[in-house]
């Protein structure tokens, strides 16, 4: 047990290096130079360690365990699946640190930012190197809590408000995963990433575990309708945080889901890898994915700010990834294509979305403004930024020759294959919606590009400063990588993704089929052409209608409906919905009947006050009862219940954010019920 070589291994070091360098950064806040070098050194060394793992993982998983910690023991394990994510995360971590070090002075409190950035990295890397679900949860929570500080970095009212939603939903996600883990532990007595299907099958624990893991990780990944934290959090936090969030954090949710579906809920090796009930949930996942991607894309088109557009774009892209995973699950041992497409899109989305967010950050750094009506015409003052943004935008749009094309093509193959296998479940419609979503994606990102870089320049722009050049380095690297993946799409596929398929139990035929995908085939290029043609039409319509400027009459607004009685009728204060229903403070031009937050969560929040109302009232009665018995104050107490009502109801002081959260739980429970019905 005390063998030193057994104590520190590469996977452990990868998460401990950022963890322990974080307090050093904080301690060095008086020496800005060294303090800022530490994140770079830490992330670079993590990246080097990741590279050193490649040959070792090829021979077999790298693992070690510490049974003496946390009662159930912690363990670490790197296998090909986690290696793919590790390479992605550690590479992005280096670039984002470099960007942040140059950028962060613009936002204030640089050392707090860098400290919590390192902690977030540590958490995200820890999720990947974890060898069991307990260790995974440990780092998942670390990531959630420390990234909260990043999200509210600006500390203003809107940031704190959005941060509250972010934090509580993050905690709910953690608790749901915890509950799933406890169920798993109670049933099987172990938490390793090994198949538990044999003991779970047919027991009452099977569906709850499946649902809790999916919803818990789905909250982090931002699947609609669990994405409610994303638009708010993205529009208030600094650009590098959004890059971390899109590039790393929501991907840990995806990683968790893939991990659950490929290990605990599968039989690796012989025969079918899933049972029938999981195959059915694959169909559900496909439709959740399709719904998420379409919803995200349409709403992104309706947004009038950069950050909210990109936030909904992330929701939409997660939809693609979940759809791919759904196909993989739906087709069972034939589903190699879906998983490959999903993983490939994870990588590509991280690259182009990080590029987009960091470019937007650089624009903010240069101009100090992100309002779309104040931007415009930046092509003259910042041509390089325009070029990089264009590369990433075309990447997300799926232009052949850039990275998004390859993964979207594989995902398209996957959905067609799913339809071809079973001819069931209206999957042809899914394929059709896939094309439509891709077209809308091109449209909103093109719209964004046009409004930032084309058109008239607004006011004078300053000179490019020294820090701007440092900011350019990671952006340039990201753009080049996007290009390389785009030009040589098969390289990544063969080197990284194909080797991890066969241990997962996919048939040789299915893997072979993936290996022989040629994304440059005429039909695939044609379908890309179809997407762009459709995008042109939508763009044309949009340029006439201006969806993002649409304003809807107020009587259509859910707010005015639910608040009408409160405003127009003289209600007793404790009944006034106005005091217990939180109002939206962020500006969103989204019509509120389309706003999932309002539509789904507001009524629930209102209902959720009841659990607080009842105990408060009961406590009052009990306390009074005591006085009646002990104190002989019955008359004065009875008076209190007569017409003139005491106005000091505790309820009015209830923390409104708290209510949001309780509402959300109820929402999740409803979601679970819907899940079971399906």
């Amino acid at each position, binding site marked *: 047990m005390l063998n030193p070589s057994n104590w520190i291994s590469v996977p452990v070091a990868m998460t401990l290096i950022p963890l322990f360098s974080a307090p050093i950064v904080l301690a060095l806040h008086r020496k800005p130079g060294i303090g800022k070098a530490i994140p770079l050194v830490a992330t670079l060394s993590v990246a080097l360690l990741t590279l050193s793992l490649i040959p070792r993982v090829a021979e077999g998983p790298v693992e070690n365990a510490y049974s*003496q*910690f*946390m*009662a*159930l023991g912690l363990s670490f394990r790197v296998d090909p699946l986690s290696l793919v994510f590790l390479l992605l995360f550690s590479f992005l971590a280096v670039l984002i640190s470099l960007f942040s070090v140059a950028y962060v002075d613009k936002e204030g409190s640089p050392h707090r930012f860098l400290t919590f950035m390192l902690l977030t990295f540590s958490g995200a890397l820890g999720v990947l190197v974890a060898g069991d679900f*307990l260790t995974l*949860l*440990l780092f998942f*929570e670390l990531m959630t*809590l420390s990234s909260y*500080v990043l999200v*509210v970095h600006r*500390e*203003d*009212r809107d940031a*704190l408000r959005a*941060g*509250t939603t972010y*934090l*509580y939903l993050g*905690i*709910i996600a*953690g*608790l*749901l995963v*915890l*509950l799933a883990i*406890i*169920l798993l*532990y*109670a*049933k099987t007595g172990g938490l390793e990433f090994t198949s538990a299907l044999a003991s779970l099958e047919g027991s009452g624990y099977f569906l709850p575990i499946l649902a809790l893991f999916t919803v818990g990780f789905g909250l982090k990944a931002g699947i609609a309708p669990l994405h409610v934290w994303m638009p708010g959090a993205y529009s208030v936090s600094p650009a590098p945080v959004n890059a971390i969030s899109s590039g790393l954090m929501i991907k840990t949710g995806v990683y968790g889901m893939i991990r659950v579906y490929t290990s605990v809920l599968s039989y690796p090796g012989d025969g079918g890898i899933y049972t029938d009930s999981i195959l059915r949930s694959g169909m559900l996942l496909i439709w959740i994915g399709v719904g998420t991607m379409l919803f995200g894309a349409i709403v992104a088109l309706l947004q009038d700010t950069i950050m909210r557009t990109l936030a909904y774009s992330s929701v939409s892209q997660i939809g693609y990834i979940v759809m791919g995973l759904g196909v993989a699950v739906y087709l069972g041992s034939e589903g190699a294509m879906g998983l490959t497409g999903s993983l490939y899109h994870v990588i590509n989305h991280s690259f182009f979305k990080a590029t987009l967010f960091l470019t937007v950050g650089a624009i903010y750094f240069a101009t100090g403004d992100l309002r779309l009506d104040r931007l415009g015409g930046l092509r003259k003052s910042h041509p390089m930024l325009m070029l990089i943004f264009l590369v990433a935008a075309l990447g997300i749009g799926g232009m052949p020759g850039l990275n998004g094309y390859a993964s979207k093509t594989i995902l398209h193959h996957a959905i067609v294959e799913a339809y071809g296998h079973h001819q069931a479940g209206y999957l042809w419609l899914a394929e059709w919606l896939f094309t439509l979503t891709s077209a809308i994606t091109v449209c909103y990102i093109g719209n964004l590009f046009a409004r930032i870089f084309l058109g008239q320049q607004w006011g004078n722009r300053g000179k490019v400063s020294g820090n701007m050049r440092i900011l350019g380095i990671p952006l340039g690297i990201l753009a080049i990588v996007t290009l390389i993946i785009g030009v040589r799409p098969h390289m990544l596929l063969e080197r990284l993704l194909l080797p991890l398929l066969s241990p997962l139990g996919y048939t040789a035929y299915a893997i072979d089929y993936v290996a022989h995908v040629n994304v440059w085939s005429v039909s695939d290029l044609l379908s890309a052409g179809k997407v762009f043609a459709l995008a042109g039409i939508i763009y044309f319509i949009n340029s006439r209608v201006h969806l993002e400027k649409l304003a809807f009459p107020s009587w259509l607004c859910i707010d005015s409906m639910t608040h009408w009685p409160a405003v127009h009728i003289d209600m007793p204060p404790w009944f006034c919905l106005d005091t217990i229903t939180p109002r939206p403070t962020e500006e969103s031009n989204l019509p509120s009947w389309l706003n999932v937050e309002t539509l789904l969560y507001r009524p629930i929040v209102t209902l959720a006050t009841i*659990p*607080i109302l*009842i*105990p*408060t009232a*009961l*406590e009052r009665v*009990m*306390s009074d009862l*005591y006085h009646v018995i*002990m104190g002989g104050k019955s008359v004065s107490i009875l008076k209190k219940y007569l017409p003139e009502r005491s106005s000091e109801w*505790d*309820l009015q*002081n*209830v*923390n409104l*954010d*708290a209510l949001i*959260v*309780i509402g959300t*739980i109820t929402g999740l429970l409803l979601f679970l019920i819907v899940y079971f019905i399906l």
Partner: protein
Amino acid sequence: MLDAELVKYLPVAAVLLPLVACIPLWAIEQRSAQIRDWFAISINAISLGLIVAMYPTIARGGTIFLEFPQLLPPFGISFKVDVVGFSFALIAAFVWLLCTIYSKSYMEYEPACNRYYPFLLLCLSGCLGVFLTGDLFSLFLFFELMSLASYVLVVHNQTKEALAVGYRYLMLTLVASLSLLFAIIITFEVTGSTSLVSGNYFPAASGLASITFFAFLAGFGMKMGIVPFHIWLPEAHPVAPAGASALLSGIMLKTGAYGLLRVIYQVFGMETVSGAGWQTMLLVMAGITILFGSALAIAQRGLKKRLAYSSIAQMGYILMGMALFNENGLTGDVYHVFTHALIKSTLFLCAGAIISATGKHTVDEIKGIGYRMPVTMTCFTIAALAMIGIPPLNGFVSKVFLSVGALDAGQSAYAVILVISSLMNGIYYLPIVISAFLGGEGEAIGPIKRRFGLEMAPSMMVPIVILSVAIFATGLMPEGFALQLSKAAAQLLLSS
């Protein structure tokens, strides 16, 4: 290695030392406040040392037994230490020592300290006595000592509010004691003995047995703060001085839990309790207590009042754990006693430090306090996260064991209640933490009293820091100590 004969007298010494030391303390405090503080601390430390000295015997699986049948006939006084009592006594003496050290600076500017310290020692004696005695009657004796002595701690400030609250506390304590005495007399009548050694006096549920059980439940439940017996708790805990509130919430509530553990497992036995349907009733009470306490904690504005309601919810966890009747649940239960003692005393001591430095009592008034009192708020944050059950802090471990126990017992609804309650913990603790560190540097608070250039006196800071380190250590490496004891205690209770 201590001589076996000597070991027999350790429990008596640990219990009686604080009791007897009150007399020299009274003499000393007439002369010097400084020596009084140190004397009280050293008595505490010796008591803790005496309890630690029992560890080798307990670790070997032995029990320590000593009786004085000639005292107070017909019951007699006896001391019996097994791993259950030892665990409770150990954490009690440990937290007591830290709280006494904390009180040294906290009480510096408070009036009537000469009354505070002797009663703190009397309370310690009563509390340790409850945990280390071997029969119900001796337990009752020390229970009374503790309850009455703690009344003086509750009303320490002597404000009108404190006296009113104290009256309520005293009345309800009397009700609890009377019902307890009633139950003990019936037990004695039926079986001719109240010793906890033999156990299982009521093989089947009769009418008399149910009356006895409910009388026990009312007596110990009142002390524990189970809904609907909690009515005194949220009033009494906040008005006491911080060191005493930490002990009231962190330790003295556990005497009720300890009593109920003994009653359920050794006086009645699991078969009787589950056969009569009391297990279901206890579980439902626990569920209500958890949700009720948490919901009301959300609605509170006062810092200490919020902590007090949170204690009610946590006592619900402990009641739930003991009603699950399986090893995981009981292990989690005893472990949660450690967990809650450490966490809640940290929170109360931090709250006391904030209140004494700023004079602000409500949650809204202390926005930005993290910039003035970083150490305090860091410890508060650790404790709050532990309460929510964030790994690797100790609250997580107890939550896992309790939930697994609930599932083992086939009561999966209670695992869900635990998760919901964790979230509610987050809802009432995290806003305090967030507003302390984010959203302004607390201009409204004004300058705080600094001592020795620190945010608080070192003798206040050291206990808080030790407690937070313990929260972290017992969570990350529970196997070493607390969890081992909990497991042994669970096995012992289940086998009896």
